[in-house]
């Protein structure tokens, strides 16, 4: 995974709450077996409306998505994260994220920036007033900055370190292979197997 320390870009305000993963990437896109190329499917039904915010020329090239509360609710499809990153987003700002979406984002190089409602609102207003406003998402400082606005966002130390180092989760876990094996020795034998153990 690529290391992430800070990102500077322009933002686009999506004034909707409860944006579910079926809207982010509709299910007909889920039939693909690849990990790339999902950007074309991002919000594909909403994008048919020329007035939809992602279709507006002034927000073209924005890399930070600002959304209403409860973003990414619904299914576990990581395709939603792949669609956002493939489209060019590096961060999403919301008052609240669905749990699975949040954890998928943190695996896929998309930073979920959780701010207070008033901060999201203020940021949307700033961006709507000036669409060229430069927004900085600073992972090292756990801070979002735009104009006069400085907002702190929560992220645990471990995840922050992992993202900043660009470390592979599986590789990290495999460092503890010994612990996994000894746990397996202790597991009760009566627990079900889907087939007889080899």
């Amino acid at each position, binding site marked *: 995974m690529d290391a992430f320390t800070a990102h500077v870009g322009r933002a686009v305000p999506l004034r909707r709450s409860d944006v*579910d993963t*079926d*809207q982010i990437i509709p299910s007909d896109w889920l039939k693909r077996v690849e990990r790339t190329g999902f950007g074309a499917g991002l919000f594909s039904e909403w994008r048919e409306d020329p007035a939809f915010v992602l279709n507006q020329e002034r927000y073209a090239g924005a890399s930070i998505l600002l959304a209403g509360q409860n973003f990414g609710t619904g299914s576990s499809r990581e395709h939603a994260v792949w669609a956002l990153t493939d489209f060019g987003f590096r961060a999403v700002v919301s008052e609240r994220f669905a749990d699975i979406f949040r954890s998928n984002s943190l695996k896929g190089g998309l930073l979920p920036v959780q701010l207070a409602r008033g901060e999201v609102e203020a940021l949307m207003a700033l961006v709507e007033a000036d669409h060229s406003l430069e927004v900085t998402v600073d992972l090292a400082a756990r801070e979002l900055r735009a104009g006069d606005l400085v907002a702190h966002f929560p992220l645990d130390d471990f995840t922050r370190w992992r993202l900043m180092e660009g470390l592979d989760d599986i590789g990290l*876990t495999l460092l503890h292979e010994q612990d*996994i094996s000894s746990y397996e020795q202790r597991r009760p034998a009566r627990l079900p197997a889907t087939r007889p153990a080899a």
Partner: protein
Amino acid sequence: MGRTLAEKVWDAHVVRKAEGEPDLVYIDLHLVHEVTSPQAFDGLRLAGRTVRRPDLTLATEDHNVPTDALTITDPISLKQVETLRANCQEFDIRLHSMGDARQGIVHVIGPQLGVTQPGMTIVCGDSHTSTHGAFGALAFGIGTSEVEHVLATQTLPLVRPKTMAVTVEGRLQPGVTSKDLVLALIAQVGTGGGQGHVVEYRGEAVRELSMEGRMTVCNMSIEWGARAGMIAPDETTYAYLEGREHAPAGADWSAAVTDWEALRTDDDAVFDEEVFLDASVVTPFVTWGTNPGQGVALAAAVPDPAAMLVGSERDAAERALIYMGLTAGTPMREIAVDTVFLGSCTNGRMEDLRAAAEVVKGRRVADGVRALVVPGSMLVKLQAEKEGLDSIFRDAGFDWRNAGCSMCLAMNPDTLAPGERSASTSNRNFEGRQGRGGRTHLVSPAVAAATAITGHLTAPADLQEV
């Protein structure tokens, strides 16, 4: 201090604990389907890794399968299913393919085969994995990167979740089902109300639910944002499990029951959050909007967004009414549907089919209504046929199908056309969920059956005697 059920299961699965790091948690069962796994298997191959415990992994085909034929004609769907078959072969994973008697929706087959047991940790690249929590297992959905992680290591690094209790006091009235209960709960707490929490459902009304009713409730935990839903195992759980293909037998059975008996929240345990609901006031419940929290009693009317106090709720309601083609104030009972879908991992089990068949028996589906019954698994289908339910449905004018996700989501040939309206026993009424432009009302199996008969949203009690 005592511990909650969720904490007990969590503690028993911690492989490694270190200050400032997530716990490394062991996974007892990993369920796999065709949609969220191909990129995970690719990742394994790219890194030269293998599947650590194929014997704790079980795969099925469900999302893409057509339910009226045993061949897939859509080339992209076919490729996805064939990719799963090839991956399972390569990594030696047990797979139930279309046509196999044990094939079905991933969350229906686990419990049915008895591989879902109390106290286990269960994951799947699917948000409705919460279903398995009905057995007192800690079960939750994961993304594809985590699927790859579990395949490679049989563990996940996880931050310990917060706990919440939902206590449902009192008893459900006759004719009110677990689906009504959970829809009413979500309308009360909102779609994000459970975020970050593992929820334990408790109280008299929950204890009185059958295993299948409990699965319906736990299934929809994710629809109000909970990470997982759990119910403490009891006699109902044991009675369901005993004798199943993978359930412990003989001396193992008694040992297992002894262990399971300890899976109760201690009296002095403290939950981070508590919610209370009075079961006795719940009536048949349906949704009017485009998220599962936008629901009302069937006896009520489409709500007026203007009367909503919270701005974001008002905006969402206005948008939803436009999408749904509804006007505030219309009685829910007057809403006419084109399609009735009975199935999915929420309500595609025996009890659901039996409840619907009882309503349908001796009646006819209304003219112009397309009605589908899609059993959650092939074993459900066979059992229903043994009980003669298929002929009850067929005689009434329902389509009787093979097992799959079917019209729960638009990934297979069963879809709504733009503007079509359905009463559906599934779990999501998002825009386009059942097909582009399709409009979904979430309902219980009994309401679905009665609605098929009249052609508009109806509870069985509204029907005339036959």
